[in-house]
């Protein structure tokens, strides 16, 4: 059996890779992809805790389902925003998106 710690450390690593991508990438679509990495790390954590505590308690799985739903909603709205911004500004480089900056 794989120890629980291995899953937790893997999920932590994946999450931190996502954090780096969100903070360091310039492209809005690349930032959305990094957010997907972070959400995947969260689901791995939820399912690992579900499996290694009592598997008859489905709370971990239920939360994973909700994370899936929120991730799908997030990526749909986020990519729509990216396409919409590209139409009006011809760029999705977040360094050049300063419309709301005074």
């Amino acid at each position, binding site marked *: *059996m*794989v120890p*629980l*710690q291995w*899953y*937790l*450390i*893997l999920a*932590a*690593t994946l*999450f*931190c*890779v*996502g*954090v*780096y991508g969100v*903070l*360091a*990438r*310039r*492209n809005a*679509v*690349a930032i959305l*992809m*990094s957010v*997907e*990495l972070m959400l*995947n790390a969260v*689901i*791995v954590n939820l*399912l*690992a805790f*579900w*499996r*290694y*505590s*009592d*598997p*008859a308690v489905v709370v971990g*799985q*239920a939360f*994973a389902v*909700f994370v*899936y*739903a*929120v991730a*799908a*909603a997030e*990526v*749909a*709205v986020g*990519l*729509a925003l*990216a396409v*919409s911004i*590209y139409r009006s500004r*011809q*760029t*999705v*480089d977040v360094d050049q998106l300063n419309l709301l900056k005074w």
Partner: protein
Amino acid sequence: MTLQQIFFFVFAALTLVGGLAVVTARKLFHAALWLLLTFFGVAGLYVLLEAPFFAAAQLFVYMGAIGILIIFAIMLTRGIMRQDAPRFNEQWWLAGLLAIVLLVVLGWLAWQQPWTTTAAPIREDSLHLLGLALVDPEGFALPFEVASVLLVMALIGAAMIVKEG
């Protein structure tokens, strides 16, 4: 080392190599393909965690729907496939430092905590239990309905945002 642990390392390597390539790839289209590899590695981990429903959902929802949606967005915004623009902003080193500090703290917490685990066998009807819990008024019926409404609103909103004019 058991067979399970070997497979864990294989899928963990796929996940992490894919993830690192996503955030460092120079071409955005390559990043999207690496993202699909990461999703596949995570699906393998779900199989090891004996959650076959989530492994299948990972393949359909993430690799299928979200992967294709991201590739569509990349192609619809042609200018972002330009190669000469720098990948990272000027605070990339600060972001890297923050990510490493976060990783050290999280890893230390996960490692030193004496988790009490029960390796109880999975019940045959665990998916059945999940389905019942999602529609049970005492369980997750309300969050489940709210999640459905959220998804519909998000899709309508996305269509509104990209509508011409």
